[in-house]
């Protein structure tokens, strides 16, 4: 029972990070029908901004309470990643918006490689140690052991997911976003500034990836320029699993992947952790091809 609860907790904590990354995939897909494969690498850049900012603040602003420094670190990472997401869309994707979709997809893979290997060049290829932004404590719930880090990860992830939910469904901008996602051309005919909506979507998605990068760095303090590949891939899978283009679906998909991984990893089949997680994905997609929350849309002739 203890082991079960422990695995569940570990899975939800890991899954909430996947969920944050998956949101970026799903938002961009919802609007542009583009899989932004560079998204996992934006997540990596977020971690590295956190790494440099965290170390800098720990040295030069040591008197401030850790909460303040952690918040500055996170805001800075969101800002820089938001800018990166904006530039990415402006430079790499917008010129191709009317080209066949496969062209943007390949561009996305190109941007991904650029960030990965550019990252190796700039940050150096060897793994780095992410600074502990706040002090770590062990918390014991009757045998189920966790750290305040895991709780912070959960809390921050939920807060940002709530914020996104509010933006998408509760604001004027969110309505514009949904309109563009529903029908790009009609939305632009109705006077919605589609370019601005798309740019903002990239900024928000990249900002969430930055948050995920910081939370990832906190829980798994080894970061390197290729660290975005696997979490990015799994978050993409989570987005597809939840129904790509669907915001709550990405959250559920992310947490589901995290929990499945935790349970398989804790069983005697830990050897096949990734394989089993992906097989479950395939099975779900066989029965629900558009994902758990996706809508089935027949092709109009």
């Amino acid at each position: 029972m203890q082991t079960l609860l422990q695995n569940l907790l570990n899975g939800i904590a890991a899954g909430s990070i996947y969920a944050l990354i998956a949101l970026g995939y799903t938002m961009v897909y919802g609007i542009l029908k583009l899989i932004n494969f560079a998204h996992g690498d934006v997540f990596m850049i977020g971690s590295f901004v956190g790494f440099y900012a965290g170390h800098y603040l720990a040295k030069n602003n040591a008197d401030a309470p850790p909460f303040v420094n952690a918040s500055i670190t996170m805001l800075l990472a969101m800002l820089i990643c938001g800018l990166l997401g904006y530039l990415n869309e402006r430079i790499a994707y917008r010129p191709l918006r009317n080209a066949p979709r496969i062209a943007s997809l390949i561009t996305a893979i190109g941007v991904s490689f650029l960030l990965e290997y550019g990252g190796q060049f700039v940050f150096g290829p060897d793994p780095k140690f992410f600074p502990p932004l706040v002090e770590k404590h062990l918390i014991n719930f009757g045998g189920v052991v966790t750290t305040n880090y895991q709780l912070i990860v959960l809390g921050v992830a939920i807060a940002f997911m709530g914020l996104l939910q509010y933006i998408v469904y509760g604001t004027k901008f969110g309505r514009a976003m949904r309109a563009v996602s529903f029908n790009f051309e009609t939305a632009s005919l109705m006077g919605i500034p589609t370019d601005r909506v798309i740019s903002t979507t990239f900024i928000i998605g990249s900002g969430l990836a930055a948050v995920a990068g910081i939370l990832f760095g906190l829980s798994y303090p080894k970061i390197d320029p290729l660290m975005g590949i696997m979490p990015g891939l799994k978050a993409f899978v989570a987005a597809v699993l939840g129904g790509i283009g669907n915001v709550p679906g990405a959250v559920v998909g992310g947490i589901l992947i995290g929990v499945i991984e935790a349970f398989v990893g804790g069983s005697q089949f830990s050897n096949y952790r990734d394989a089993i997680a992906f097989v479950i994905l395939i099975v779900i997609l066989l029965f629900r091809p558009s994902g758990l929350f996706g809508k089935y849309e027949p092709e109009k002739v």
Partner: protein
Amino acid sequence: MKKWTFLTVTVLSLVLFGCPPKTGETTGTTTGAAEGGEIVVGEYGSLTGGQATFGQSTHNAIMLAVGEINAAGGVNGRTIKVLTEDDQSRADEAANAVTKLISQNNVVAVLGEVASSSSLAAAPICQSNKIPMITPSSTNPSVTEKGDYIFRMCFLDTYQGQSMARYIYNDLGVRKVAILIDNKSDYSTGLAKFFGDAFKAAGGQIIGEQSYAQGDSDFRSQLTAIKAMNPEVIYVPGYYNDIGQIAIQARDLGMQQPLAGGDGWESPKLIEIGGKALEGCFYSNHYFPGDPAPAVRDFVEKYREKYSATPDALAALAYDAARVLADAIKRAGTTDGAKLRDAIGATQGFSGVTGTINLGPDRNPQGKKLVIVEVKGGELTLKASVDPSGQAAPTPGTTGTTTQ
């Protein structure tokens, strides 16, 4: 939906198997080893990627050794030139790198790799081209079984696993051990097996086995399973970049047991990542930089002077490998593949940093020493020194008990 599936599969395979641009460093494009000119030796290593510090220390030490040899007049009046290829810590890239070194750069011999998976990928290529290869530090036994052109400078995992098993059983009195294996690495699976077999043979119990894949970041679920088994020691024969994370997550789960491992832990990054979580953990290694033996002191001094860093075991082995190769070229008097092979194979009584090197008929060094290094107070300290007969003898402090 078919479109989707197809797209997903295509994209996944691109991401997983795509060939990223080479970030490798090549110190020149000179081809050929014309008689009388430079002797061109190839090196392939993990200068970037997951095991980057392995490749970097190895590269530094090779350049140090070759620099010294050339400064002293080279070999048979010719200087040695090293061409380096980066394999990004990947076995498939290692095969490409070695193919390029042999077929395009016509190197006379190849030095590398550290990771056994990469050496295993490159060895058959060297063998079929009849180019001698010396791996400084791949410990998996099957590397040198790839053919008579493949040599190594370090001890084998059989020896390393057995020594650690005996040490844990006899000297620490431990009876219950759990193993956590990196299932993506030939090194880790091999070492885990040799350790497990020896520990069981000694009378101990392996109460559980879990595995992870290199580069994973979450080990909590495997550790949760191990925690429930309550072992006295957890044997984790993985690479340094995962070990720190594993230690931190084990402590986060409230686990206090020491982790033990092999020479894959050896890296300046180990303690940087693992920090306090590694306190009391220990691993088997080829050499200890604090060893008072003159050969070690001399090497550590020269390396520090040139690179402002303490050389790790991989540097020490690479330094020996480069010097053994130069010595063999000198004795052979030629760079012809078969003659060079015979000369390397005849290496006896060569005095190296990691001890006296006597290559046996299986192309492995005989009777090399082994040290067990412990993390104490955030530093590496010598815990014990094991002599080639396999007996562990605890040593006080950091004085070391080497006889060479």
